[in-house]
């Protein structure tokens, strides 16, 4: 194969790439020195608090902020929703107030008098008929391929019917949404934002402010985010409340305004993962070959449509039909939640396929292997290998049994499998690579590290290319002053930043070679960077140390611009993963305990094995949370969320998650695909794998997540009656 200038170093020529390397900002974070948006307190900063609507659907009939305005310490009061506006969900902001202290801001909020005319609301969608009767549904798409009716009618086929679903959940970022903004002069805005999109910040602030008649140019806006306490798809913009903070700052003479959402407001207003419920029919030939799929699904993402789960997921029978209905509710807006729509589609599909495998009296892994050719061609190899690998790690042959653990006692054990996919192509990225005559090397780009290890991956890529240790590279990100880099969403970051920094670093090295070659009496093309030296290929005795080499630059500094996309194949799209859950269920109490989750995952060429594995661990924790605990609980009468807190919006603790075993697929067949993103894929399968494992343990399906004791006991009772 012809080599291309920027190609990744071949296996055996990688000092750092693919090794397990500690994240470079670990000490900053664990010592508390890392400053998050929440920690940003420029002198004179004001605190903003929101006055929120207590009703799910209401019209504002009167509004009086005069008492709040007069309260000493209040510096600015901004009406978000004036009289006449209709509010679509409880918790939405009506007025925001900036004051010298948090307490004064809260006191001011209590002084605001708002009157509402309450309007009819709908906050629950499990019952589609009820939503239809209320006129709150909208067609969400429909598609037919092949001839499903004929395939289902085939007398030789085995049919399975079922109901599957999962509720609306929230993101629960450790750091809530928000920003600190200040006008350093009347034309210049500085913003610190908890954001997944640093480079996009100035444009988003500019557009939002100009819409509100605030005159500002994008190039006079700076957005900073050095550290962020999670985003998961919910933080792609400064949001309306970011614009409000900038307006409050303007009203307060440019003083810094910190507007971070309180946890309850965050849970009500800052985004929800759409629910999905589906009635499914699926058929296969007696030998297990899938023939047909039919699904009637619905779900809600708040007042507007929110896409639909891609059904059937990954494994597509030749004859298929799906129909989706959007239920429009007053629960707050949908937002991308790590792998948007995939966990929903995965639970529904993998649950239905698991039920069909049972009808066929087939081992679900054998059943998936049999039908892996119905997956997209690019993924078939990965799935085939991952199914084998995961089964081996899970000791599947020993632990799997036909449905219902027949061993005595009330603790029943079961295993379940699921598979998933994601794209993950690298986003557009630009970076500066700077090599100074003293040997210092810097990389700058307007990216952000969501906690995924982006800084570390950048350092490793540049260090590998320049033949230096990781700590020799200064990584500067998190500021919109640096070259434009894409938003961190859709698992696009690692591909984007690794590819741009590779190209930039190769070009920078070429310039260094040109400066060094004469002194070694060779051509630049004869040189390589290796182990802290610039040396002649094939003759390591002829070399200069990195510092000696850089000294040859004299007073000149090298600066190159690395870009993605660009020449040479450095990355790709499309990954597969297989997960197996091993659970124990207490059939007397309905409690589900995770014993182990096995994850086999590919993501092309891995830059840092440690942070890659960490991504999977994190995703599995998130997966356990939404499988066993999470749901946005809404009261039907009041229309409000009853659990907008970390007490009753339950997340797993360390004792709940069990043991995780992660295996990253690497080597031939994977590495040459280049770098592909990993953030979303491993969070997709846990729901289906855990639900299937519970079914395997107790012999009956618990149709919807979360798998709480009441549902497990109800399923057992129903199973006994059947």
């Amino acid at each position, binding site marked *: 194969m012809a080599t291309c200038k920027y190609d990744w170093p071949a296996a055996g020529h990688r000092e750092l790439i693919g090794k397990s390397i500690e994240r470079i900002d670990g000490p900053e974070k664990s010592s508390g020195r890392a400053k998050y948006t929440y920690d940003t307190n420029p002198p004179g900063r004001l605190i903003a608090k929101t006055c929120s609507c207590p009703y799910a659907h209401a019209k504002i009939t009167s509004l009086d902020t005069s008492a709040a305005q007069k309260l000493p310490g209040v510096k600015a009061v901004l009406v978000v929703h004036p009289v006449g506006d209709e509010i679509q969900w409880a918790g939405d902001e009506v007025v925001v107030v900036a004051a010298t202290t948090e*307490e004064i801001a*809260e*006191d001011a909020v*209590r002084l605001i008098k708002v009157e509402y005319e309450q309007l009819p609301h709908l906050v629950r969608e499990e019952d589609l008929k009820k939503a239809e009767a209320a006129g709150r549904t909208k067609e969400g798409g429909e598609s037919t391929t092949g001839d499903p009716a004929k395939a289902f009618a085939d007398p030789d086929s085995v049919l399975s019917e079922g109901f599957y679903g999962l509720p609306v959940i929230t993101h629960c970022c450790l750091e809530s949404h928000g920003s600190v903004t200040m006008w350093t002069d009347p034309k210049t805005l500085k913003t610190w934002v908890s954001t997944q999109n640093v480079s996009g910040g100035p444009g988003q602030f500019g557009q939002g402010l100009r819409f509100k008649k605030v005159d500002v140019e994008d190039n006079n806006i700076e957005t900073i985010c050095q550290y962020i306490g999670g985003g998961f798809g919910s933080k792609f913009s400064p949001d309306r409340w970011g614009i409000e903070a900038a307006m409050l700052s303007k009203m307060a003479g440019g003083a810094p305004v910190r507007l971070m959402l309180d946890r309850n407001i965050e849970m009500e207003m800052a985004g929800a993962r759409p629910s999905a419920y589906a009635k499914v029919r699926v058929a296969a030939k007696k030998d297990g070959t899938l023939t047909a799929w039919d699904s009637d699904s619905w779900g809600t993402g708040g007042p507007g449509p929110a896409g639909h789960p891609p059904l059937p997921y990954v494994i597509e029978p030749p004859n298929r039909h799906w129909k989706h209905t959007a239920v429009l509710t007053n629960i707050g807006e949908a937002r991308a939640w790590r792998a948007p729509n995939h966990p929903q589609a995965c639970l529904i599909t993998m649950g239905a396929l698991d039920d069909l495998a049972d009808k066929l009296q087939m081992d679900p892994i054998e059943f998936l292997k049999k039908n892996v050719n119905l997956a997209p061609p690019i993924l078939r190899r990965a799935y085939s290998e991952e199914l084998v690998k995961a089964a081996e790690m899970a000791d599947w042959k020993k632990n799997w049994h036909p449905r219902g653990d027949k061993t005595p006692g009330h603790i029943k054990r079961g295993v379940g499998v699921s598979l998933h996919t994601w794209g993950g192509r690298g986003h557009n990225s630009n970076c500066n690579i700077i090599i100074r005559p003293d040997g210092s090397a810097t990389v700058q780009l307007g990216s952000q590290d969501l906690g995924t290890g982006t800084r570390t991956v950048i350092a490793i890529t540049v260090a590998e290319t320049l033949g230096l240790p990781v700590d020799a590279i200064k990584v500067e990100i998190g500021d919109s002053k640096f070259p434009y880099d894409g938003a961190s969403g859709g698992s696009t970051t690692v591909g984007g930043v690794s590819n741009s920094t590779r190209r930039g670093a190769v070009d920078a090295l070429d310039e260094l070679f040109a400066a060094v070659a004469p002194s070694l009496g060779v051509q630049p093309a004869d040189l390589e960077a290796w182990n802290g030296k610039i040396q002649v290929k094939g003759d390591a005795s002829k070399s200069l140390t990195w510092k000696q080499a850089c000294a040859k630059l004299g007073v000149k500094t090298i600066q190159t611009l690395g870009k993605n996309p660009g020449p040479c194949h450095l990355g790709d799209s499309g990954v597969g993963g297989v997960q197996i859950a091993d659970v124990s269920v207490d059939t*007397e*109490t*309905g*409690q589900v305990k995770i014993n182990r989750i096995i994850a086999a995952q590919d993501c092309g060429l891995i830059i840092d094995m440690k942070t890659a594995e960490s991504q999977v661990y994190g995703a599995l924790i998130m997966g356990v949370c939404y499988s*066993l*605990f999470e749901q946005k*609980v*809404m*009261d*039907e*009468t*009041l229309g*409000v969320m*009853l*659990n907008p*807190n970390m*007490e*009753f919006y*339950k997340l*797993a*603790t*360390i*004792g*709940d998650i069990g043991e995780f075993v992660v295996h990253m697929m690497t080597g031939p067949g994977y590495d040459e695909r280049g770098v592909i993103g990993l953030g979303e894929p491993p969070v997709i399968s846990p729901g289906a794998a855990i639900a299937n494992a519970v079914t395997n343990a107790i012999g009956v399906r618990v149709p919807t997540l979360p798998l*709480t*004791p*009441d549902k497990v*006991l*109800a399923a057992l009772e129903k199973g006994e009656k059947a």
Partner: protein
Amino acid sequence: MEAFEYASPKSIQDAVRLLGSTWGGTEVMAGGTDLVSAMKDGVVTPKRVVSLKNVKELQFARGGAREGLRLGALLTIRELLDLPQAKQEYPGLVQAADGIRGEQMRHMGTVSGELLQRPRDWYFRNGFGLLAEYDGKSLIPDGQNYYSAILGNSGPAYFVSPSSLAPILIALDAKVTLHGPNGRREVELSKFYRTPQSEGEREYVINPDEILTEITVPAARGMKTATYEIREKEGLDWPLAAAAVALEMDGNTVKRSRVVLGHVAPVPWPSPEAEEALNGKNLTEETADAAGKAAVSKATPLSQNGYKVQLARVAVKRALMRAVKGEA
């Protein structure tokens, strides 16, 4: 949080003098783990908070096997867990304390605060009142009653008693000492809790001008005790149901028993039915299950909490088996 006056008296007498005669105006703070969050949420809005932190005479644990235990109001959950006498004589009490899993809660939270914490009911905590009344009736029977009461729930209250320690302490015939303007009085813990009949009433009989200063636990006299909690999560979670038992045994025969359920009714729920099913019987898996069944025989679950009937039954059975097996 609304502005309030903070008082930090040094003696019980001074503390009592700072209290008011009606609920709402003044709140007493021990560890503050519940009170401060309730104040932040605007669920309580005291004008004065009387902190007991500097009342050193409330920081003690005394007694032992023969004379019983005396626990000062400010004894922390962590200190209770580490108390040798408690570990040896009252395993059921230590098991109940162990259900409070947050280490920060254990270090800040006190035994008196644990008994006096307000219900966790989500309608109450979201500002809709302890009885969650709306348009003249409770929201709970037709609302989100997944965690609500299955016993003692004929109205107007549907919340569940939040205390993890009260059931076992009641099973042990514990008393609490209350100090008020007219001196001290002792109340049996079994008579300490009540179901409020109207909004504004509290769920216990302590008066607004009294302070709970001490918990007295009679000598264990070789009784077998245990607590069993069923939670959704391993930690940082409230039990869905819990049972505490104290058994006087003659060999394997139950001479006398106390069975108290937690988190299933607006008050800790003693079960004479379960006790009757046990007394005079050999304690086996079957009699334990029969006692569990008897304990929930009068349960009246709401639309979403039928599962708690099964959980309470299992909790009683498992607490009994744990008591006789002597598990830690």
